[in-house]
Structure formats: C-alpha cells, structure tokens
C-alpha cells in the first residue's frame, strides 16, 4: 500500500515504516488539538468520579467474563432477538457478512441505505460491497460523511475525520458537492445536515453497528452525539445491524458500568447526547423503529483470538479511542499510518491478529512501549504486553502463526545474544568499543555511525562508548584490600 490513505479492502501489507517517513505536516497539529481537548475533558470527568478505578476493574471483569462465556451469551442474544421479532445471521468472515447485508437489501429492493457510524462495517468494507451490488450507502455521521466524500477510511475510532482542518473540509465540500462552502464549522455542518435530511427520507434501508448488545433482552445499544443514529434506525422500514461478536454484555447492570466509562474515556462527556436502545423491530404502529430488524453477528477471526489467553484481552475493547488520544506515536503519525480501519495502540494489536502477522508485522513494533495506553484503558487491556506477545509471534512464531520475519534476522538475534551474554566476549567488547570508535568521536559524542546504527545517529548523536567501570571497581578493590591487609597485621 503506497497511497497516503488506506484502501477500503483489508490491506495485503501495512507499511507503517514507509508511511511514518512522510507524515503530512498538519496531522500532528490537528491531532494535538482534538486529543488535547478530549483528554482535558476526560481528566475533569474522572476528577468527579472517586470510584473510577473500581469501575475500570469491574469493567475488566465484566468484559473478560463475557468473552470466556461468549458461546452462552451469544446463544442468549440470538434467542432474545428472535423473540423480539428480529432475524439473526451469523457471518464467519467479512465477505460473508457483506454478502448477507447485500442479500437482505436485494430482497427488499433497497437501492439506497443510510448508515450510522460503525467500525464493524468499516472492517468488512461494506460500503464497497453494497456499491458493487448497485446499492448506494450514505454515511450520516458528520465525520464519516466527510471521509466518504474524500474517499478514505476513518483516521480515528471516534472522530473519523480528526486529521482534517476546517479549510480542507470546506475545499472538499466545494470540490465534491459543487457548492460554495465557507470555512466556518457550523456552516459546514449545516450543509451536511441539509444533504443528509434528504437522504434519511429517501433511503429504504438503515445500517448500523452497535456499541453493545445486551444478551439479557437482545437490545442493541448505540451511543452517538449527532442524532443520526436515531434517524437511520427509525425512518427506513428496514434496519440491518452488523455487530462483532465481542460486543455482547450479559445484562443491563453490566451495561451501566460500561456506559459510565465509555463517553468519559472517549470525549470526556458524562454521557453521549444520544444512547439508543433497540430491541427488535417495532411491534405496534405507535412504536418507533423499523418494521424489519436484522442482526448480523460478525466473527471475522474473533473466535480464533479467543483461543489465545494473552491476546484475547484485545476483544475487551469498547472502542472509546482513548488509547489513541494518549499515544505519542499515534499523535505524530495519525491513523492512516496503521493501514486499516482501526488505528493507534488498539489497531496495532487488533490488525495483526485479524489480518495475520505477514500483512501487519510492522504494527506490533509501532510503539515505544511507554504504557500510556494501558494506563487509561477503561477496560484495562494490557496493550504493551500484547504488543510484546505479537512481536514474539512476528519474529519467532508461536502456536498460532509461523514467524513473518526472515530466518537471517533470527540468526543475527542468536549472534547478538551470544555477544551480549558471554561474559568474556561482552567484557572484551566493552574494552574495545571506546578504542574502535575513537576515530568517529567528536567532543564526547559519535555524531555519525555506519549502517545499521545510522538509524540512531541520523536523528541524534550517540554518546561515546566509555566503559571502564570494571577497571575502576577492580582498582578500588585492590586498594581497599591493601588498606585492609595493612590494618590487620
């Protein structure tokens, strides 16, 4: 993948390193602004919640418990959704999920669909599948509306167009919509709203994902701020929801714990503007909602991840995006560096597990392991630990996948281990390096070194090799020994 924004289909290879060498200059600036605002609000919300850490622990336990008993809860979801009058479909992978949605659309003769912002449909490339079948899907979340116009995917989990400045958005509107768009955010939103009103009324189908699925009653939970979620799921007669199997929560009580954490971690709101609960289709004329409700449960590698006791905690994720907001790597490279719909620390552990380490082998290394992500994660995903687990998978392989790194790399690691762990060899190196490097030394520093260590020195000089501690220690021991022997005749 060489273009600057990721394609819609699952990428064959993700070039994080290549992308990181030419990050557009405005991206870190835009990200700093947006994430700074979210994090500031989050801090304020947490300060109001003395029980924050207890909530995080409870959320961790709820999510892990659900994953470990996922078969039971999924059966309950199916039973309850069917009991509420909905239809449940099971999709093993992205292609099957897309095919199911296309089929449903065809059966209803739907030619246009309006969509709620959904990561699951980004994951399966649903818009493209629908388009190929002659069905036009319109994104109705403002951010998604913008990136759909731009022809790209989301660069942040909760703010898909976070990387764009208002000037760029206005230029995009002028170019794609052929209208005079000012750079005022309110005016831009008004333009989008005018266009979207018509689409809501004309669409024959509404498509959503879900933030949660409550097993107890089969309710779909959608958290949003723009009201478009309500429009998409009530105006058209047909509602199809595509939901990852990891989105299940056992009951309403567990849901309240997760809802308390989600908006606070994401945008720093106490609660999002809208929290919609949808249980099957409408049953009476007076009730809101679609006449027909379909739920597509998406596996796409998730049940495979569940087999891995270390990595399965990845699936606890509730997609708040907070790990992106605190990640210094994400904030400098932006979402497109991660090559797929999900980015930042969670993307760096999610994508390699879904796409395989051959395609996504650069991502587990795209972290300084600073741990800021794990510190804020509302469900306590041990992201650094999983990154290390996946690095191991990439270079040495494990019971789940063969290594993606070439054999010579493993051979050089063996050599490195011998040099670093054989005491006499290590000591010899420590004595020799200051002399070997002397010709390159300038004022106590090594400003330029040959490849591969030039990857360090092209960014900053390396302090000169000094060594000498062992000699100092030995001399001191001898001196002290002399003194001791003089002192005790």
């Amino acid at each position: 993948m060489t273009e600057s924004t990721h394609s819609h289909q699952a990428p064959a290879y993700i070039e994080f390193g290549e992308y990181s060498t030419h990050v557009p200059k405005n991206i870190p600036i835009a990200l700093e602004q947006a994430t700074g605002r979210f994090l500031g609000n989050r801090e304020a919300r947490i300060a109001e919640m003395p029980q924050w850490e207890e909530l995080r622990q409870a959320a961790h336990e709820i999510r892990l418990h659900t994953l470990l008993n996922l078969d039971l809860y999924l059966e309950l979801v199916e039973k309850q959704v069917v009991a509420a009058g909905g239809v449940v479909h099971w999709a093993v992978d992205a292609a099957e999920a897309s095919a199911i949605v296309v089929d449903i659309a065809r059966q209803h003769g739907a030619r246009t669909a309006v969509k709620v912002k959904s990561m699951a449909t980004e994951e399966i490339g649903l818009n493209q599948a629908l388009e190929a079948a002659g069905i036009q899907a319109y994104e109705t979340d403002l951010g998604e509306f913008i990136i759909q116009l731009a022809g790209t995917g989301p660069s942040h989990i909760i703010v898909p167009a976070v990387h764009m400045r208002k000037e760029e958005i206005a230029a995009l509107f002028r170019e794609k919509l052929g209208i005079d768009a000012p750079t005022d955010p309110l005016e831009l939103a008004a333009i989008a709203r005018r266009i979207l009103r018509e689409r809501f009324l004309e669409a024959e189908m509404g498509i959503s994902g879900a933030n949660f699925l409550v097993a107890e009653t089969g309710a779909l939970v959608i958290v949003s701020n723009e009201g478009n979620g309500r429009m998409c799921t009530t105006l058209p007669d047909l509602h199809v929801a595509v939901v990852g199997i990891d989105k299940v929560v056992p009951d309403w009580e567990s849901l309240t714990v997760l809802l308390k954490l989600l908006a606070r971690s994401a945008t720093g709101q106490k609660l999002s503007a809208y929290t919609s609960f949808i249980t099957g289709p409408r049953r009476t004329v007076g009730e809101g909602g679609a006449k027909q409700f379909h739920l597509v449960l998406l596996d796409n590698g998730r049940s495979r991840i569940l087999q891995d006791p270390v990595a399965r905690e990845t699936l606890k994720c509730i997609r708040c995006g907070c790990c992106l907001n605190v990640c210094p790597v994400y904030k400098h490279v932006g979402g497109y560096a991660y090559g797929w719909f999900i980015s930042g620390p969670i993307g760096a552990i999610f994508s390699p597990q879904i796409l395989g380490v051959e395609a996504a082998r650069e991502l587990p290394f795209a972290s300084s392991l600073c741990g800021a992500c794990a510190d804020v994660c509302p469900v306590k995903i041990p992201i650094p630990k999983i990154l290390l687990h996946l690095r191991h998978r990439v270079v040495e392989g494990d019971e789940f996948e063969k290594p993606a790194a070439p054999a010579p790399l493993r051979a050089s690691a063996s050599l490195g281990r011998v040099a670093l762990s054989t005491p006499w060899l290590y000591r010899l190196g420590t004595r020799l390096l200051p002399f070997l490097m002397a010709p390159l030394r300038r004022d106590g520093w090594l400003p330029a070194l040959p490849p591969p260590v030039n990857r360090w020195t092209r960014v900053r000089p390396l302090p000169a090799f000094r060594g000498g501690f062992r000699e100092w220690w030995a001399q001191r021991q001898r001196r002290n020994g002399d003194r001791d022997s003089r002192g005790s005749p």
Partner: protein
Amino acid sequence: MKAQLFITCLAEQFYPNILQQMVLLLERLDVQVEFPAEQTCCGQPLYNSGFQSQARAMARNWLEVFGRSEAVIVSPSGSCVDMVHHHFPELFPEGTREHELARDLAGRTFEFTDFLVNQLRVTDVGARFPGRVTYHPSCHLLRGLGLRREAGLLLSEVRDLEIVPLPEEETCCGFGGVFSVVYPEVSRAMMEAKVNNILATGAEAVVACDAGCLMNIGGGLRKAGSQVKALHLIDILASNGGYR
C-alpha cells in the same frame, strides 16, 4: 545492608561515571556494595524485539549470576528493573525452579530511587546542587514500576536546587529501545517534542533515571545546539556543590 550492583549494559557502556557515583553514594549510606563480575545484559533489547527464546537464555544467565548471593539487587535503571520484575517470571513456566528463582530475585531487585526512599528510608543524602533543573519521569519507572514520587522526594532535599515542572512530563521521550531504530522518524518527532518542552522550562539540566532516556534526550539537546545537560538523578545526588 549488603547490595549487589546490577549495572546494566547501557550505563556500563555510556555512563560509567553514574555507576561510580552510585557506589560511592551507597557506601556513604552504609551499604556494603557487591559487584557480581559475571553480569552482562538482562536481555531486554532481545525481549522487546520479540526474541523471547534468546531473552530466556539471557535471563537464565542473569538469574544464575545474581542468585549466588542472598543480598538485594540495586540498579540505576527503571527499565531494566521492570524487565526483571515483570518479564523474567513470565519467561519461565509456573512451577519450574527457574520461575521460582525469577520471582525470588524480582522481589529483591530495586530501582535506585525505590531502594533509597522505600528500603533505606532516606530522602536527604546531603547533596548540594546550585541550579535550575527539570525532571523527566521515565516511562518504565513511572508506569512500569509505579514509582511516581520517589525521584521528586530525593530532588526536593537537594540544597540550592530549584526544580521547575516539565510540561507534558509523563509523555514518552521517544526512546523505546528497539523502537528508536526501527522507526527513527517517529522517535525523532517524539524526542523533539520532549526537547522543546525541556527548553521551554529554562532549566539548566534535565534529570532522568534511565540511561536510554538520557542517551535520547541528551543527544536531542546536543543536536538542537542546546547547552542544557541531560543528567542522571545520581549525578545530582552525588553532587556536593554543583556539577559544573
């Protein structure tokens, strides 16, 4: 009290002065210092690169070398101590002798500031350092080992020292070991942000507790043409009248 020195490979190669000062400081505090000469690197660079099988072999050496004495182990690096605390036990299956040994040694391995403040119960080591400094809390010290206040307590007792807060102090400097050479451009961006924050404080020196951060930040300051020094906390604590 007896303590074994775990000098770490980066400090040994690049900052031998810190190690010497650490010995002198510990002895001044009546600690009997031992130096197991067979020690090399703990294996963290290989472990963080994913080479767990190689790192396991290195961990085995380390455990053997430091397991010979009953004494506690002290190291001037949060990152290397984090490796011993959190990753050594994980490298060996539960129930094995090596796992038990790893847990035993992890339980008595202390990062330097932790050792002073929480084991020796010392915060005033009698240091004097006239100057303005700012403090960068290294990620593994802060989040890995949860040592959030120790360095500050030690610094606050240093005479004539003015401590200025560092904006965004808890943000990683961009070192990250292998990360710094795998993705040098990203590492650069993070390092430059850190350096700019340091320069904004007007401090004469930035203090940290890990050789990796010091190499990165110190190199970045030099590259920026700044006179601001990157010092290990031990440089300050061992000082009796200023570093300059």
